[in-house]
């Protein structure tokens, strides 16, 4: 047995010592003479994306004073189907978070009349969207290039929370949260647009539907968000 093992060992050592070490070993592949099926300028393209957006209040509402530039983030995947060098259509699936921070003033009546240290409504949505993409650098390689996306979206809002922080004794802060707000709609829809240069996008979303239910319509949340995004591929 020992002999056999010794022979196997010697054979293995000899094999490794005598074997030639390829420093470079290339099997030449023929050029793909057509456009890639998948890719930034292929027939189909799937990429994930992340982004950060800011809420832009378009009108002053002293009773429900949402601060400008309340922030949120998003991530998701988008799928694109190219019709020609100029026009594509696509869909996306995404998660969006919205954070509406309220200024605390005596005129505030929504979400409540109390003065807190901070107060905000936090919404999170899971949604889908359909879009048209218009590419402006028609002559390009496998590259997203400059484009304009126009589309519509519909979201489900599973997370609808109200947060507030209050100062209590000894300088401590009390954090409170109310979940499943019954004055917030579960669904929303709207339009979106994005301009992009390859991986980088600037996007805007305009919510058409109301989020705040009756009888609080006057406290409707700002509809416009503007953000910056990054396509990951």
């Amino acid at each position, binding site marked *: 047995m020992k002999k056999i093992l010794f022979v196997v060992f010697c054979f293995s050592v000899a094999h490794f010592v005598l074997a030639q070490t390829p420093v470079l070993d290339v099997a030449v592949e023929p*050029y793909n003479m057509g456009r890639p099926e998948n890719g930034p300028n292929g027939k189909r393209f799937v990429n994930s994306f992340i982004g950060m957006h800011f809420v832009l209040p378009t009108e002053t509402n002293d009773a429900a004073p949402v601060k400008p530039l309340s922030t949120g983030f998003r991530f998701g995947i988008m799928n694109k189907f190219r019709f020609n060098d100029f026009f594509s259509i696509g869909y996306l699936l995404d998660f969006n978070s919205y954070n509406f921070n309220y200024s605390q003033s005596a005129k505030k009546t929504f979400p409540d009349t109390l003065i807190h240290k901070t107060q905000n409504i936090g919404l999170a949505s899971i949604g889908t969207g359909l879009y048209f993409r218009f590419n402006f650098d*028609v002559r390009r*390689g496998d590259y997203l290039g400059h484009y304009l996306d126009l589309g519509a979206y519909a979201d489900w809002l599973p997370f609808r929370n109200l947060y507030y922080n209050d100062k209590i004794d000894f300088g401590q802060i009390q954090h409170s949260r109310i979940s499943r707000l019954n004055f917030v709609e579960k669904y929303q829809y709207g339009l979106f647009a994005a*301009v992009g240069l390859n991986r980088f996008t600037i996007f805007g979303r305009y919510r058409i539907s109301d989020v705040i239910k009756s009888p609080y319509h006057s406290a409707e949340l700002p509809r416009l968000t503007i953000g910056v995004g990054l396509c990951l591929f």
Partner: protein
Amino acid sequence: MRIFIFGLVFFIVLFTSAQNKYWVFLNSKDTAGYNPKSFFDPKAIERRIKNDIPLWDYTDIPVNSEFVNTLTGMSDSVLVASRWFNAVCLLASEYQINEISKLSFVSKIEQSQAGHFIIAEADENLESDYSISGFQNRQLEIMGADLFAQAGITGKGVRIAIFDGGFPNVDVLPCFKHIRDNNRIIKTWDFTRNKENVYGFNSHGTTVMCCIAGIDTSGNPFGMATDAEFLLARTEIGAEPFSEEENWVAALEWADKNGADIINSSLGYTFHRYFPYNMDGKTAFISRGANMAASKGILVVNAAGNEGTDKWYYIGAPADADSVLAVGGVDPYNTVHISFSSYGPTADGRLKPNVCAAGQAYAYGKIRPGVHYGTSFASPLTAGFAACAMQVRPNLKAYDMFLEIQKSGHLYPYYDYAHGYGIPQASYFLPDKKKESESKIEILMEDSDVVVNVSAEKGYNCVNDFCYVHCSNKDGLLAWYKVLRVSTNEVLRIKKSNFNQGDILRVHFHDKFNSYQF
């Protein structure tokens, strides 16, 4: 909603009203009054005579200035007028270009769009086992530069144009003092700003020039052509800018007019504008321009690119042009392909890169010397070599020189798509210096196997030497190629069944070559 709609309309208007860039090709020129002897630098005339190019050539006559004036009035702005292509590059709206297309002197219009010119400098954080010391010698040693130096060959009288993103401190750095002191920077032009000063911006050009002709404070050269003359053109805006191919083409014509013998450019177009199958030497405008420069008797040396480990993988334009000497990169210590160097062939199956040189080079940056990575630096090392070769054989035409440099490759006649014909060797141009080894290669047919044996010359330890093997099919295209580290005499054993009728197995070891046709 109003803001959203306003924003939307704004962006749509912004995008759709954007000017496009076009090449407008013209159908005639004003030949009256054209005198090549007053138009060209005497060096350009000399080059034309040497290359048997007629002094009076229609493509050399400048674009009709009346046509340019008309187009200037009808477009937003005229960027470049190309005498070689009898074309004007301009910015115009769709309406304007429609009107321009109706002009009687317009023959055709091609849309041109900005893309990325990638200056071929690789990530400097690549790991290296080598210390900085010795790099400077090594990048020259592998080309046999000492033979040129000993023979007093320093590129004297050869004019080299360098196209790059800027040349900061070339006017002050000590490594270029010998060039400045002898007024050998003949002309400069910044094509991105239409100004003369190029001594700022991206330091890539400084490093490239140092690889051609720099000398350190101890008198040791960084490149071979220390006595060459220079034309410096800034054609790029940054390291990876949105740049314009018309700058490059305009610089080609400028270099031609001012008597360049060699053009070095370490940049290229890849995926931003093209698909790999476009790398056929005919599709990219810049490649057509490079071929035109070659037809004017200029040797165009271009970096192969640094996409070897990227999705693109292949060489870029204009390295795909058949008359451009595309230079790949090797590790200067083992002289084998360096990972990032782009691979050939071209989309139509031509060999690229043509040759290779050190892809890690020691040279000055903006302030001090350091190690730089990229085929960007293999290209100027080769351009410096070419200048020396031109000094040795001053009567050789540019295309013949291109072929001779290929033949001087250390692997020649072996080739592959990573190394081309290998590293150009000074000994080829100084035949009395050429030494032949006594190493041997045997290709044996043993039963069902093909065996390749090599033996080094007596007293030579072949361990850690490299054996290059490839198989080409009956159309001349390589099916595979390998570089093997030699540790025994038998370097390769392959089943015969792996080869087809007409396949050729070629082997290179030391300076020996052998082949077998199936």
